[in-house]
């Protein structure tokens, strides 16, 4: 084929292009992913029953806020990294902000507690459940976000994949927070952050394979 023929073909009857398609597709995938994650947690694990005490409610809101902040920041960056040359402006380091915040709060809460309680505060009763649940619940949201990014044109596949994993981890953690009764900030700082980072790592590893175009 001659390149001129291709140019002719492509420039015949050119369609008007929707400018906000990239952000809208990713946002749509995240919305569906959030519903799936929350639903999966409520149906498979069950919501926590003690949510009407002030303390439990406060912790649940804190966990949700952390998870939503993680996903929201990652979404902001992914709308850039899903585009060619999208990584040119600014650093991606801001996605770490919620993690720094939760570790800081955990340190304060540890400092105010006797050292004998630390073991319980770190491990809770359900660290294993948390470790398994968050990555498993994250699978469907991850697939949805990856599908959305594939509609765009990422040129840094590793980072775009990592951001997709980060979003999926955040959504999944938000879902899991509806079930989780481990009300301690150090628990959240270790197990929530750890599992979300695991999802991010998985995204970075899978990105180059899944996002190629």
């Amino acid at each position: 084929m001659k390149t001129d023929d291709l140019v002719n073909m492509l420039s015949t009857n050119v369609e008007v292009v929707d400018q906000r398609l990239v952000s809208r597709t990713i946002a749509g995938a995240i919305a569906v992913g959030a519903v799936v994650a929350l639903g999966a947690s409520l149906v498979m694990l069950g919501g926590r029953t003690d949510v009407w005490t002030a303390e439990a409610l406060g912790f649940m809101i804190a966990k949700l806020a952390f998870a939503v902040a993680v996903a929201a920041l990652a979404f902001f960056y992914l709308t850039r990294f899903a585009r060619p040359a999208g990584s040119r402006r600014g650093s991606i380091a801001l996605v770490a902000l919620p993690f720094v915040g939760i570790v800081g709060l955990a340190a304060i809460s540890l400092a105010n507690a006797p050292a004998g309680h630390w073991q319980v505060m770190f491990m809770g009763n359900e660290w294993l459940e948390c470790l398994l649940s968050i990555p498993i619940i994250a699978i469907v949201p991850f697939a949805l976000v990856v599908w959305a990014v594939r509609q765009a044109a990422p040129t840094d596949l590793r980072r775009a994949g990592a951001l997709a994993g980060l979003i999926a981890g955040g959504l999944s953690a938000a879902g899991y927070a509806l079930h989780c009764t481990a009300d301690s900030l150090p628990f959240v700082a270790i197990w929530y952050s750890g599992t979300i980072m695991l999802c991010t790592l998985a995204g970075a590893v899978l990105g180059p394979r899944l996002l190629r175009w």
Partner: protein
Amino acid sequence: MTAGLDGDAAAYRMLLERLSQHLRSYYRGRLSRVGRGDFEAEDLLQETLLAIHTRRHTYDRAEFFTPWMHAIARYKLIDYLRHTNSSYRDVPLEDAGELTSHADHDGVESSIDLRRLMARLPVKMQQAIKYVKLDGLSVAEAARRSGMTESAVKISIHRGLKALSAVIRPEHKT
């Protein structure tokens, strides 16, 4: 580019023609360093043009056009080399100057056979692309001839071109 995004076919054609020249010299230069010929450069050029076309919605008008286009060109080059078993993995960042030089236009044909590739698509997509993009009929006219709705024609073109750009890529050789 922005005029092209708004549906100005003449401006869009001019853009693609100029991009072809820039990208041809860019790819020929890069590929000749690893002992690849002009035919391969032409394959890669056409793959890249199709990618630029089917992914033009990812261009953000608030940004500069050159880095966007260059990122695609470079991405496609690295992808091409990686999937055609080249040891030349580390493509250095080039300055924009290399992209703006002109190559002679001597009509090398690529090895890509559009009609053969089109035959792999579903019939609806083939028809839509043939009527609207090759024969130059309007979407309404194509819809009447093929018995599809107008939006179905548009969607078939869009999906068909995306599918073409997928089958045009070099296959995995690992």
